[in-house]
């Protein structure tokens, strides 16, 4: 398949066939990750800048490992070690980076639209590793791939996302990807953590977790930021955990064989019961494993283009 995209800004740019193609490639790369010698020369001579203006562990390490396993040279740049702290504008920072001729910039930024903004300024490829509350396409693709590996198909499945949807780029990208692949999506959160005009989203909305979990195949828990309580969106974590924390009892209401995912990092005992996170029902570490393979596939497609 000829890869027609220059940038990956969000999953809604991708056709269904293109998503399937990413999954197919990811499956091949997953095999490399299970070898004793986990390195192939595919991207030798390519440079990838990992520009993380917001803290991140798993996404950055995942991209770094993905690049290195394909023999690309990866360079990490974080906000604390960059001139952004000295008041340089984002435009100037990325133009400076571009002048060093990387082939691709992977960006994580706290502002929604930041990836599209830098893509409009640069000649090299831009991969969005999370921009504000807007999008996290590589997370959605790794979630989709994890489920594809688990189920074979997503079509006809019921997926529930629980938690802070309003401020979640993962939720936004997941909803787009899952619905594109034929799954049905439900959201569950207190009204204060739901996005405005959620009625315009292709989802069913629940305020009661007990109702929401009935008959679902998968539950995705989202991380609850402590900041939400400070902003007055919640009384406290205790009450949140009591009303929206996912526990083993909820899985009993779901379909038999239902699984649990979490994009991480987890607050054990807040949005997810600790025992459940470690149980056979959890795909959380499988998501991390898939993440490297999916990001290898993406680096390959965006750097080689075929």
């Amino acid at each position, binding site marked *: 398949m000829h890869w027609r995209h220059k940038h990956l800004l969000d999953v809604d740019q991708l056709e269904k066939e293109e998503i399937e193609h990413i999954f197919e490639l990811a499956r091949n790369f997953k095999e490399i990750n299970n070898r004793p010698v986990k390195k192939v020369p595919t991207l030798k001579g390519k440079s990838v800048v990992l520009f993380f203006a917001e803290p991140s562990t798993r996404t950055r390490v995942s991209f770094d490992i993905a690049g290195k396993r394909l023999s690309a040279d990866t360079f990490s740049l974080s906000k604390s070690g960059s001139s952004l702290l000295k008041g340089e*504008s984002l*435009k100037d920072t990325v133009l400076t980076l571009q002048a060093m001729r990387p082939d691709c910039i992977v960006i994580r930024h706290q502002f*929604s*639209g930041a990836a599209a*903004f830098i893509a409009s300024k640069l000649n090299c490829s831009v991969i969005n590793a999370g921009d*504000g*509350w807007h999008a996290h396409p590589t997370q959605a693709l790794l979630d989709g791939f994890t489920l594809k590996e688990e189920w074979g198909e997503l079509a006809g499945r019921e997926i529930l996302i629980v938690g802070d949807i309003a401020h979640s780029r993962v939720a936004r990208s997941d909803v787009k990807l899952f619905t594109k692949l034929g799954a049905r999506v439900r959201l569950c959160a207190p009204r204060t953590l739901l996005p405005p005009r959620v009625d*315009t989203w292709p989802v069913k909305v629940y305020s009661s977790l007990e109702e929401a979990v009935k008959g679902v195949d998968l539950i995705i828990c989202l991380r609850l930021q402590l900041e939400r309580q400070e902003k007055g969106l919640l009384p406290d974590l205790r009450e949140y955990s009591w009303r929206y924390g996912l526990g083993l009892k909820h899985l009993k209401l779901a379909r038999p064989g239902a699984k649990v995912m979490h994009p991480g990092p987890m607050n054990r005992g807040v949005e997810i019961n600790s025992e459940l996170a470690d149980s056979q029902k959890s795909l959380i570490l499988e998501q991390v494993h898939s993440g490297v393979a999916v990001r290898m596939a993406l680096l390959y497609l965006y750097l080689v283009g075929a």
Partner: protein
Amino acid sequence: MNFDLVINNIKFLGQRVFLGIKEGKIAELSFKDLSIEGVPVFDGQGCTLFPSFIDAHVHLREPGFEYKEDIESGLKAALAGGFGQVLAMANTNPVNDKASVTEFMLTRARELYPSGPSLHPVGALTRGLQGEEMAPLGELAQAGCKAFSNDGLPVKNNELFRRCVEYAHDLGLLVIDHCEDPDLSEAGVINEGKMSSYLGLKGIPTVAESLQVARDILLAAYLDIPLHLAHISCKESVELIAWAKEKGIPVSAETCPHYLLLTEEILADYNTLAKVNPPLRTEEDRQALLAALRTGVIDILVTDHAPHADFEKEVPLAQAPNGISGLDTALALSLELKRQGQLQEQDLIRLWAETPATLFNLNFNSFKPGDRADFILVDESKKWVVSEKTMYSKGKNTPFWGQTLRGKVKYHFLEGKLVYEDK
């Protein structure tokens, strides 16, 4: 009747007319040819005649932010845009909260443009626009301020706002309120709704505006003192103002061309040029505003001209400053509304000249004998591209950038004198 100048080949309200000028004033507007032997004749080239417009809400940025705009560039944009008078807001640096700043602005404008356009400073309602203590309103009025406003920084303290409104009323000047509840709008980037939800941006709900509109209406009713509501952007505010007017409560209101031609949809690609406060709303709001202008629920049009430097808008949307540069484009955008059948020529005269003059006690040319001969001749069919070359404002921050607009001032006369010509 003797004239200094006769203007022929012009149209006014759909009719071919002739305009006679004497000593800077209108002498006669007539359907018959006023040409007299020995009196110079000016060929209006088929242009449409309008009184000079008044823009009751601009930011000229001087003193303090001359890199965005200064009085020279701002007034040049006004002149070329068809405005003979502008009311300049107080959020300069230093803030216009003392006579020295007011006097500086007035002096600078008169030095640069002795024949006009006129700059009318709007004094700060509270000291430093901080919303904590009343500014020296008497001093500001005496220095030449034509209204008071805390524009840009809403006054949340109801008691302080009430006292400011009362005090200003004694001075015979109107208070222009920027209607926004700062807690409800905090950290908001665009309209709260479908688009903010999709883009993952903190929204500014319409209730942040309408709640303050309701406060102002109730206050105006209680005090029986007129209040002017700035840049109204949503349907709920329109409904409240309609109710107030029905009750005879003395409020007036304004809106801007961008709220009449654009909606939040234009922000789908995080277009920083369309970031403005209050934000662009929905189609329903746009329709409500258009209807309100026709029925007089909203009294006047203003540009809320808010120029910024290019680099300030070349940032992610959340970081970009609010504001649209409007003086250069307002007339063409108004004519677009006329072509669409939303507003008539008379509406434009009422909204851009007659009513603002009444509200702020300014000069209005109704083309009656003795009126100051401030008028524009507009080439309604002239197509032009919004660009570096066609904009006089330093602020190129307009969502209409690069678009072809129709209608341009060909000649601008102030006190009977040709002060601007489009070449």
